[in-house]
């Protein structure tokens, strides 16, 4: 149960923690679409 709660909390924290990666444009991806 503790593990489940911890996983859910980590999942919830994901967008905040990973925001710099989400915000930064992916060079390869942009290159492919261009």
């Amino acid at each position, binding site marked *: 149960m*503790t593990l489940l709660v911890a996983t859910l909390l980590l999942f919830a924290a994901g967008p905040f*923690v990973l925001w710099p990666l989400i915000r930064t444009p992916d060079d390869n991806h942009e290159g492919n679409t261009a």
Partner: protein
Amino acid sequence: MLVVSLAPAVDAAKYAADLGVVTLAYLGAGALLAGLVLAAFSALLSFWAGWTENGVMIQVGRRAFYATAAMLSAAAIVLEAALLTHDFSLAYVTEHSDLATPIALVAAAFYGGQEGSLLYWALILGILGSASLVASAALGPRLAAYAAGMMAAILTFFLLVLVLVASPFDVLQITPPDGLGLNPVLRDGGMLIHPPVVLAGFASFAVPFSFAAAALLAGRTDAAWIAHTRRFALVAWGLQSTGLVLGMWWAYHVLGWGGYWGWDPVENVALMPWLATTAYLHSSQVQERRGRLRAWNFGLVMLAFLLVVFGTFIVRSGIVPSVHTFAISAIGPWFLGFLGACLVFSVGLLAFRSNGLKSNAEPAPAVSREGAFALQNLLLIGVIAVVFWGTMLPLVSGLAGQERVVGAAYYERATGPLFAVALLLMAAGPLIPWRHAGAPLWRSLRWPAASFAVVLIGLLAAGVRSLPALLAIPSAFAVAGTVLYEYARAAGRWRLAGGGWSRALALIAKRRRRYGAYLAHLGLAVLVIGLAASHFWQQEKDVTLQPGQQVAVAGYTLTYTGVQNRELADHTELVAAMKLGDLTLEPARATYAGLGGQSLTHVAISSTLVADVYVVLAGTNSDGSASFRVFVNPLVTWIWAGGAIIILGVVLGNVGARRAAFVPVAARVPSAVGAS
């Protein structure tokens, strides 16, 4: 269990409540586990991203640190909610609160026990660490990333302990109807302020340590880290100063032995990092101004943190006897391991970077501000050594076969001369110029010297013959003399400039840090006068009185009027009233029936600026008489006032100030020779 689970539906509400409690426990434990994962992730990622200077990953690592702080906050809220709703299914709530305890003290039980205080510590580090990272942009990405990595690594350790060995969220098999309650000594208003401040002080030393280690790791041994580290060292120092004075105040008002400082191991381990940081706050100026003492400054910041970890190990492992009662638990070996790791890391890092820490500035003469700071640092390190070995003696001698313990006399005799020289240095130091001293020095020293001489003559004339008293009190007045002389000089400059409010404010703002520091010096002088007077001239008398009988101590006459019983919410009090002039003092013995009849004394104190009359009820007899211990403690209020002035000085001198733009003295003064 089957029978219980098939119980009638009327118990459904109770099961729902139990489920709620269990969910609360899982929520708290889950938040701690998530915090552990995030802290470890932040530590590893920050070091790696700092090493590779990967800007995006540095930000991710930093955000993971912020998220760790958020998880710790969530866990803290859950624990506080469990305490306030009396969820006795949690072992921690049962062990540290009960239904009869006033609600404010129930809330304070959060940091009243081992597990909760560790959580509180980690929470403060998370919050202060986050604040320091937000403010660290000017230091460059690599240094800030390493600092985040260091703080995250420290939090990882704390969270590991919280998750594996000292969880505040352990659930009891059977939920008791009531808790065991808080230790009666802790059932006092002091519980609401002293422990949180002193624990926050302890936790905050990790921030300057992390920035110092990060600067060394990043090879940034210039003065840039000093300004940032100093700010957080000052926060730690301010918190610890407040915590120490509050601790003295609390001990004085609660413990009933007439004193405020007993050289208990717990007091000692709180004093040592404070002394190391006091040394750093002074020696860091030498690096800011003159580019010297770099390795020393790094060493002091690291020493302060190592002393904090050492202190935590000593206090919480229970290996040294102390009046502070943390239950002996399994966390001792963990903290010993952590202390070893921090020690090896710090010494290794300093040795690794030692080449880059050598100063290229020319050495200063002995009589200079630099020399004064160096001597003051050595004296404070000397005090730390005395206190350290006094604290460690039971352990070290125990290993050798026979356990030995030193008392207050050892500490007073060994630290007294060191403190006396430090105090004289404090009087002279602010007047000694940087780089070298000339004739103006001797002229300006006449003010503290005159203060010293006048007070010394006054004391001798009053019949004082105790050498320590004849040294301590005039020295404290000399410190005050120096501060007042400096303020008078500032006022003189202000008058020369034409006076006016705006000029006064501009003058203060320009040298705000300096005037704040002088105010702190003045506070310390007031505090030392209070310490010395109450220590050297305390009077004490044991008496047994019948109602109507009087006792006189040091010119104060007390009349015993009789005894009465009082029933209060969680205890009964036997009050023996004493008349002191128009005042009624009510020393009492409190008995806590709910705690197996534990009893403790309630001191009655009448405070004035001149002296405290401090009455302890030793016992009552069947014939109506009562036994008292009466103390008259001169100038104790000066100690508390001095503490308040110190904190005021630190706050006025630093809070809201922009970073001080220092011009190194070497660049400002064209020649060292002939400046006088």
